[in-house]
């Protein structure tokens, strides 16, 4: 069940020609998640800073 499915690192990247599709989806998902996490963290920090400003 835990056998490495490929013979080499290059093969794992290439995936018999399907690597391009698989990896572009992986990149899309990770960039979206990262972007949203960073986006909300920044937004929260900004509004906290604003609220902390002495009036």
């Amino acid at each position, binding site marked *: 069940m835990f056998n490495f499915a490929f013979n080499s690192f290059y093969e794992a990247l290439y995936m018999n020609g399907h*690597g391009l599709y698989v990896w572009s989806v992986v990149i899309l998902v990770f960039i979206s998640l990262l972007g949203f996490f960073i986006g909300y963290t920044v937004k929260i920090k900004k509004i906290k800073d604003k609220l902390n400003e002495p009036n």
Partner: protein
Amino acid sequence: MIKKFIHQFASPKTYLYQVSRFYKYIFYFSLIIYIISIIWGLFFTPEDFVQGNSYRIIYLHVPASFLSQTLYLAMAISSITYLIWRVKLAAYLIIAIAPIGAMTTFIALISGSIWGIPTWGTWWQWDARITSTLILFIMYLGLISLHNSFSNHEKADKLLSWLVIVGAVNIPIIKKSVDWWSTLHQSASITLTDKPSIDPVMLYPLIGSIVGFFGLVICLVLLSSKYQILHREKNKSWVKDYV
């Protein structure tokens, strides 16, 4: 007692303090599960007998599609809660969830398109499953821009809740589209009633990736609702104490 508990938890203040307490546990737990499942699925499962290696996109596509529908249901439940009990937190949740729902639907559409190229031989077809998912994406965008166009938040919340409820009909349609009509998209591999039609060695990492992605999306919803609360209640005295 239950009523008291709900009232207490439904106050944005208690919610915010509870979120800060649990957030990092949920985040690290689901991040680890998600990354392990993705690596497991991409490298340590055998290839599929029909689709070869391109089937590995399933580990990214299915969690996103599942969440795109689940988040809409969460919005619908929040809408009903808000309309009946006028719970403010529920209203904040609706607009907090919408952008994240749009993001997961976008991932589902794009990853499905990319998956279609090596398998179906096309990246877009107007079949019932794909079209109803596109409608879901447009609905999310519509709800967000509608809310942004209002200056009166309370009016926006009410209108949004009603629209979310009306649009909820689309969710069972997406779910059942592959059974009701002939589609290019195949029917579901995992159902509540039947044995999964996906081999166990491929199924376990898939379940892991769904659980992990679910947890990460919950974290995003927590962050986004935290922002909504701070933004909407910025004039309240407790917010000053909180920040």
